[in-house]
């Protein structure tokens, strides 16, 4: 019995940091609607700064003071980030802020290594909390008891802050209805800045408090951020109590999960998140989102098929691309193939995101499933390449059909998180089920057959499939189905009222996107000759999101450009510098600020502005007269 109790307490202690970080993320999201990907980076910075301060200043005051000062220092960094970067992009399309904060995260990963070096750092133990308390023969670290006491205190303090101060009332009001706060004449800018500062402070405090029990290293951010997303989503976005309960739930699941299911403890958390989202789509303590507001900055320029000239140009560009093997060497052709594959992958996500309005955070699942499908067929079943290439993506289709069915029941951030959960589940299975998937060591020897083996032939194959995929998606965009899908995105109310079964339409779109991603994955397997779990991983899903956002969500085929630019840049950077994350992150942040509509979106906006400047403005008032 004592064992279970102590195990429970251990879980509670782990919950403390998780709660601090998650509450910060939740508050920021509640008010600013920003999914702050950099929250993990602030957590990590908190730990690093606290490490430096506590090493520098000795004694209890040095330690505790160091922890608090570290959180404050990082909060100031957060304020700078908010004022310099985020303020510029609040009106950019949804999720664009995510891209910016992702860029920041990349930068911070390299910056901490530059400042603090690559080694894992071991922080001081907390003065007064070094030992353990004996409980019926079980040892409980006294620092755990401190953490267990801390989180209700923080929860209470936050509650008081939100209930008893004018600022807190404003924050709550803003969480419920942003427009209302604007209407109240509140200085929204400073409200956002202060909320961001508080959120970052909590994240950094969470990180700083970990130094007596964890190692400080440069991968802390990614380790925490996914778990924090899970907590926030289970608890309900914007709910502090929810974050608290979910942090405890997740930590206890970990603590007891390892006793019952030692081998699948990571899947467990995602399974629970998936179940919670399916049963209670807005989280345990969240409120159902009010009818989705118009995405700010949503284009009013309707999409149109290519004009004859544009078709000609595209065809010309394609011919030029197809002639690459005449001038380029093998390496360039292989890179070209990889870019073409990512064009398919990004275009498939783009279809889901911009036509369907469904931002998947787990699109790599279907890419990876396609790759594994090919690997199973080619290696295990020994099927010929053409057959594997055609049938392998069916695994992506299958995955998309199953997961998509549940995912499309949700929308917005919850949809994103459920897709993330599914992708993580698939990834965990591939990573841990060594007997079937080879685990981390992957499946090797998936090389193309002779006819496709030469870099030129494989390039043409990839280019051909990419062209077909992009063309197919364009056809679908302008097909009746494409319109039904856009209708569902634009106005669920109206589309339902004209007989459109929105969920079925979105599900179909999800399956189409998943299948095409599967094709990309299938080609990728043959390009690389092997399949590894990281082709199902979060970072690939994020890459795809970045490509789409970079190209421009509000465009028909922006992802094509996004994929080309991103992939070419990242291959080039990785080859040129060890600081590729810093450069890439900086590049993304710059793009976000310079092209808030994405590259293609911005180009189109410029073209439209020119066009409408040329056309005579029509007065809408005069129209009423003529209609009578």
């Amino acid at each position, binding site marked *: 019995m004592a*064992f279970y109790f102590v*195990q429970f307490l*251990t879980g509670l*202690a*782990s919950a403390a940091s998780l709660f601090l970080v998650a509450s910060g993320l939740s508050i920021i999201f509640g008010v600013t609607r920003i999914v702050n990907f950099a929250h993990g980076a602030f957590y990590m910075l908190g730990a690093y700064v606290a490490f430096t301060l506590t090493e520098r200043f000795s004694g209890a005051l040095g330690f505790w003071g160091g922890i608090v000062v570290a959180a404050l220092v990082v909060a100031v960094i957060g304020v700078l980030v908010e004022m310099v970067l985020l303020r510029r992009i609040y009106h950019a399309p949804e999720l664009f802020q995510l891209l910016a904060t992702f860029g920041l995260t990349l930068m911070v990963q390299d910056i901490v290594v530059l400042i603090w070096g*690559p*080694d*894992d*750092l*071991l922080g001081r133990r907390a003065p007064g909390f070094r030992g*353990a308390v004996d409980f019926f023969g079980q*040892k409980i*670290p006294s620092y755990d008891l401190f953490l267990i006491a801390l989180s209700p205190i923080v929860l209470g303090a936050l509650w008081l802050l939100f209930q008893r101060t004018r600022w807190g009332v404003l924050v709550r009001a803003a969480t419920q209805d942003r427009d209302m706060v604007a209407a109240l004449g509140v200085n929204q800018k400073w409200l956002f800045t202060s909320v961001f500062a508080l959120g970052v402070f909590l994240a950094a405090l969470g990180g700083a408090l970990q130094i007596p*029990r*964890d*190692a400080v290293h*440069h991968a802390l951010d990614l380790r925490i951020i996914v778990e924090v997303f899970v907590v926030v989503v289970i608890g309900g976005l914007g709910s502090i109590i929810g974050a608290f309960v979910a942090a405890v739930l997740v930590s206890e699941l*970990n603590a007891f999960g*390892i006793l019952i299911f*030692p081998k699948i403890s990571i899947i467990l958390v995602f399974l629970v998140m998936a179940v919670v989202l399916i049963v209670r789509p807005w989280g345990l303590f969240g409120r159902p989102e009010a009818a989705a507001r118009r995405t700010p900055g949503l284009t009013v320029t309707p999409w149109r098929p290519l004009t004859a000239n*544009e078709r000609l*140009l*595209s065809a010309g*560009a*394609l011919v*030029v*691309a197809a002639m690459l093997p005449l001038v380029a*060497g*093998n*390496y*360039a052709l*292989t*890179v*070209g193939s990889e*870019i073409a594959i990512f064009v398919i992958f990004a275009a498939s996500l783009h279809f889901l995101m911009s036509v369907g309005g469904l931002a998947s955070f787990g699109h790599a699942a279907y890419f990876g499933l396609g790759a594994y499908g090919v690997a199973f067929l080619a290696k295990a079943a020994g099927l010929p390449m053409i057959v594997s290439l055609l049938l392998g993506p069916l695994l992506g289709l299958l995955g998309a059909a199953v997961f998509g069915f549940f995912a499309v029941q949700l929308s917005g951030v919850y949809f994103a998180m459920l897709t993330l959960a599914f992708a993580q589940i698939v990834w965990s299975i591939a990573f*841990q089920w*060594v007997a079937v998937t080879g*685990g*981390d*060591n*992957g499946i*090797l020897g998936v*090389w193309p057959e002779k006819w496709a083996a030469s870099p030129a032939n494989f390039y043409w194959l990839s280019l051909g499939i990419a062209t077909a995929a992009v063309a197919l998606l364009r056809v679908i965009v302008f097909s009746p189905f494409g319109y039904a899908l856009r209708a569902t995105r634009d106005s669920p109310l109206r589309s339902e009222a004209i007989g459109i079964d929105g969920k079925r339409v979105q599900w179909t779109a999800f399956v189409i996107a998943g299948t095409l991603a599967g094709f990309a994955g299938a080609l990728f397997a043959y390009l690389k*000759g*092997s399949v*590894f779990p*990281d*082709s199902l991983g979060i970072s690939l899903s994020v890459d795809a999101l970045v490509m789409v956002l970079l190209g421009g969500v509000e465009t028909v085929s*922006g992802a*094509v*450009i996004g994929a*080309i*630019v991103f992939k*070419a840049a990242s291959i080039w950077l*990785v*080859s040129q510098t*060890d*600081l590729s994350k810093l450069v890439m992150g900086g590049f993304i942040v710059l793009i976000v600020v310079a092209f808030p509509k994405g590259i*293609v979106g911005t*180009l189109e906006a410029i073209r439209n502005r020119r066009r409408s400047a040329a056309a005579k403005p029509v007065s809408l008032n005069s129209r009423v007269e003529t209609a009578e």
Partner: protein
Amino acid sequence: MRRRHLLGAGLAIAVTGMAGGAMAQGEIKIGEINSYSLLPAFTEPYRKGWQLALEEVNAAGGINGKKLVVISKDDGGKPADATTAANELVSSENVVMLTGTFLSNIGLAVSDFANQKKVFFLAAEPLTDAITWSKGNRYTFRLRPSNYMQAAMLVEEAAKLPAKRWATIAPNYEYGQSAVAVFKKLMSEKRPDIQWVDEQWPPQGKIDAGPVVQAVAAANPEAILNVTFGADLIKLVREGNTRGLFKNRAVVSFLTGEPEYLDPLKEETPEGWIVTGYPWYDIKTPDHDKFLKAYQAKFNDYPRLGSIVGYQTIKAAAAILAKANSTDPEKLIAAAQGLTMPSPFGEITFRKIDHQSTLGAYVGRTALKDGKGVMVNSVYRKGADYLPSDAEVEKMRPKQ
């Protein structure tokens, strides 16, 4: 439409990337790939190691009079990026062989690439047994003592312990799983009387150390096998120390004596663990002294195990190239098979049968000295003594 123009532009970048491919006269280029950005703590000392070796090789006249050039690429910790880098090195830099890699999956990806493209590959650090055995191929050689060898060295010591009740803690992925499997197999052969009372499989890089320590303690084992490393190890040790898990229990731990893993533990270093590692401060052989002096003189830093591996990788590459006196992969293979050469750990040989080098490791016990972790009572174990019989190896290696 603009998007296609950019396709052209994107490819143009790629084309320029491959422009500098032509081989300069009197140069031999080899390619090197490692996870520099993902795992700087391990790959920086490794890089210093090979830089030192490169300097020495060229100072001694290069490869039969030609200057040795190493072109190094980062793989970002991703197998797919490693294949891209390998491709760039082979197709556009025209390197004559590939070397490097740290993570097992990347080692395997590059090894498979090498097999497909018929390029000589000298894997430096990956531990997985698959790279020389179940997925071995004729183009791939491996320097560092493998998972199996480390396990066999540890089992030799572990079998002497009186402990009968054993628990294992290993990261839940291929490396952890196969380390535990090999250790269990070899251990059970030597000690049929032992019981395995608990196994913990924390996710790699995400250990929730408190509950894991609690759970292991609850099973009350007499001895523990640990396979976790890096940040996971630090968390595990801290929780274990606080909760008294390691008190009166024997612990056998993979790799923990390597400075990369031992040094960050500082004053938390547990005492008396049986570990494999590299006690650079304690090795008194002329071969090692020479290396140590040169390394410290050049970098003003002490070497890690990665430094040894990096150093020896380039030394081995140079030896193979010199013996082959050709850049033809088949001749390189022929030269490498059975090639014996000196190393800071003494003489090593690349076995003909599975292309594994006989580089060994030090086995000893951990101790705390002046607030730092060290290995004491360490003994060098030659790799050749800890490999299965040729018949067993032949059974595991695919026929080619």
